[in-house]
């Protein structure tokens, strides 16, 4: 039986903007077990990053506010901790890496300083010990001549190498959970593959759980055990990876998978896309957020927002319609 280490229930986050209050997340719930890899997939703007930033309470508090929900990490609600207690969780228990390696590292501090910073903060070790560990970490992520590299600055590294440094930094205090927010989006395809291999290897060695956010369905397929699809600030489908790709049950997921260009596709075929744009919600959704773009829409979709329900073992979907038949369930 896997041990549940992160249990998020009913998370809601809102942002006050000039145009009104944006309801970015509207009741998100998920679990993460020890050592497993969970993928969160969705379009830009659906709320994936905001979800994880809310769990770590990195949302700027004006204009944002976490208005409801709980996030239990080893049975301690992160949303109820003091800021000081939160600081001892960030970087030490739960670490996060971000999308753009070119801007995510501080350009005027050496790599060594940035690597040793979390270690000196969270672990009671000396500076020499921290430097030694920093070298080990760089070697672990595949950066050669690590010792000399400590004195280098971020601009002396390529994008792929900077992302490796980010991972090294994130894993420096052996966190239980690594949150990766679209870490390969800004990398070349070949570098992406190398990076994914690296992460797989690190997980095998260190055993941390990984939450991998992406909008690239290709990358996540080889990495995650479970997947969650997000739309309009809500999870609309959840399943084991193979099951999701084989039997998507939500019209949005079907659309997403259908829009992937295939190597074996016909040469002159037009790429399939889903018409319309993802919504920006100025009020909590009272109807299904995907209804305006859905080809299976029925009247109930416009009246009530479906909740996540299990339709197969370990497979939940939030939809009123059975897409196999096109009729209401």
């Amino acid at each position, binding site marked *: 039986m896997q041990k549940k280490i992160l249990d998020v229930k009913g998370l809601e986050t809102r942002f006050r903007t000039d145009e009104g209050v944006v309801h970015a997340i509207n009741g998100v719930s998920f679990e993460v077990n020890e050592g497993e890899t969970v993928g969160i997939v969705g379009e830009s703007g659906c709320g994936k990053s905001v979800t994880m930033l809310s769990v770590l309470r990195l949302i700027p508090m004006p204009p944002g506010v976490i208005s409801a929900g709980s996030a239990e990490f080893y049975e301690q609600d992160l949303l109820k901790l003091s800021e000081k207690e939160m*600081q001892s969780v960030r970087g030490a228990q739960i670490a996060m890496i971000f999308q753009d390696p070119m801007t995510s590292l501080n350009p005027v501090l050496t790599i060594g300083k940035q690597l040793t910073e979390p270690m000196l903060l969270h672990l009671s070790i000396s500076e020499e010990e921290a430097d030694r560990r920093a070298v080990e970490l760089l070697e672990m992520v595949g950066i050669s001549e690590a010792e000399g590299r400590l004195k280098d600055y971020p601009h002396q590294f390529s994008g792929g190498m900077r992302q490796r440094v980010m991972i090294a930094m994130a894993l420096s205090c052996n966190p239980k959970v690594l949150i990766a927010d679209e870490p390969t989006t800004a990398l070349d395809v070949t570098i992406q593959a190398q990076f994914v291999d690296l992460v797989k290897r690190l997980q095998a060695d260190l055993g941390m759980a990984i939450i991998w956010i992406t909008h690239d369905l290709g990358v996540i397929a080889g990495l995650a055990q479970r997947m969650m699809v997000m739309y309009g600030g809500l999870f609309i489908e959840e399943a084991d990876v193979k099951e999701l790709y084989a039997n998507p049950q939500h019209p949005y997921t079907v659309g997403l998978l259908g829009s992937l260009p295939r190597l074996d596709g016909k040469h002159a075929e037009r790429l399939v896309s889903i018409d319309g744009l993802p919504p920006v919600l100025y009020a909590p959704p009272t109807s299904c957020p995907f209804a305006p773009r859905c080809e299976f829409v029925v009247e109930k979709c416009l009246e009530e927002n479906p909740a996540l329900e299990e339709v197969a073992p370990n497979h939940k979907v939030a939809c009123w319609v059975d897409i196999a038949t096109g009729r209401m369930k």
Partner: protein
Amino acid sequence: MLTYIIRRLFILPLILIGVTMLVFAMLSMLTPYERASLYVSDIPKRQGAIEDIVKKYGLDDPIHIQYWRWMVGQKDEVTGEIDGGILRGDMGFSTVGHMPVAEVIKHRLPATAELALLSAIPLIGLSVWMGIKSAVHHNKLPDQILRVLAIIGWSVPTFVLGLLLLMFFYAKLDWFPPERLSLWASQIVQSGEFTRYTQMNTIDSLLNLRFDIFLDALRHLVLPVITLSIISWAFLLRVTRSSMLDTLRQDYMTTARAKGLNERRVIKGHAVPNALIPVITVGGMTLIGLFNGVVITETIFNYPGLGKFMAASAAMLDVVSVLGMTLFSSFVLVFGNLIVDVLYGIVDPRIRLD
């Protein structure tokens, strides 16, 4: 880093020579007769007197020969020695100052330097600190207050502020007088019992352990320093604030917070080093500008610095002095630029490895 500095040092003499050429070009825009008459105070009695002067000093020789002579000096007909020239520090004779231009500059530089340093150091420290605070508390009360103060400081003309301060704090209250020292203090300073080290009253009085003179010197500096620094203070505050706001938006700030650092460390260790980079450039140039002397402030407070000298020379059409000051100012600027460049390289590692 070293190659960066050495490269800049190599270019330095070239730039300086270029400056001298420019200044000389300005000088040679006057005709030989006009240049001769710079030194003639009365209408000559004899008919060919001006032409004789022109011939004697070679004022109608080809320009490159004149330039060469201006730079390296003239051969004395009697002794055969070569003397004078810019390279030897001879910038000509100042009618206004009644001594060689170089002497005037040497004489007045400490006063200007004292004013500049005293204005710059507290001002830079204060405005940078306030700019950072303003940005961190963006749109809250401290920020709003500082922004208003900065706009007022930026908008008030120097002469208005200076005169108002002088009227109130000197004429009415007699707290802060103009000029450099009171009569009793300058008598002591000029006497044998006071040793001059830097020619700056504040430093020298401390070195002589005369705290009464030190306080007197400070008293005289208060108003000109305030007048001078308000505009620079306002400017630097806005630059710092804007740079800091920009920095706070960067991705690496989120990374820093995600590592579990508290907000103070995030601001101090991650934001400030980045935000200060443009501030150093601007602050450095402000300081250099102050060293060139500030005409209005020095005139209002009757402060015997380079600015007042420059203004008087211009008013009296003392071309030689004006050009000498131009040369001096340019040199100060070029050297100051070099220092700012080096500082920039120290603070921003991306620059020094180009």
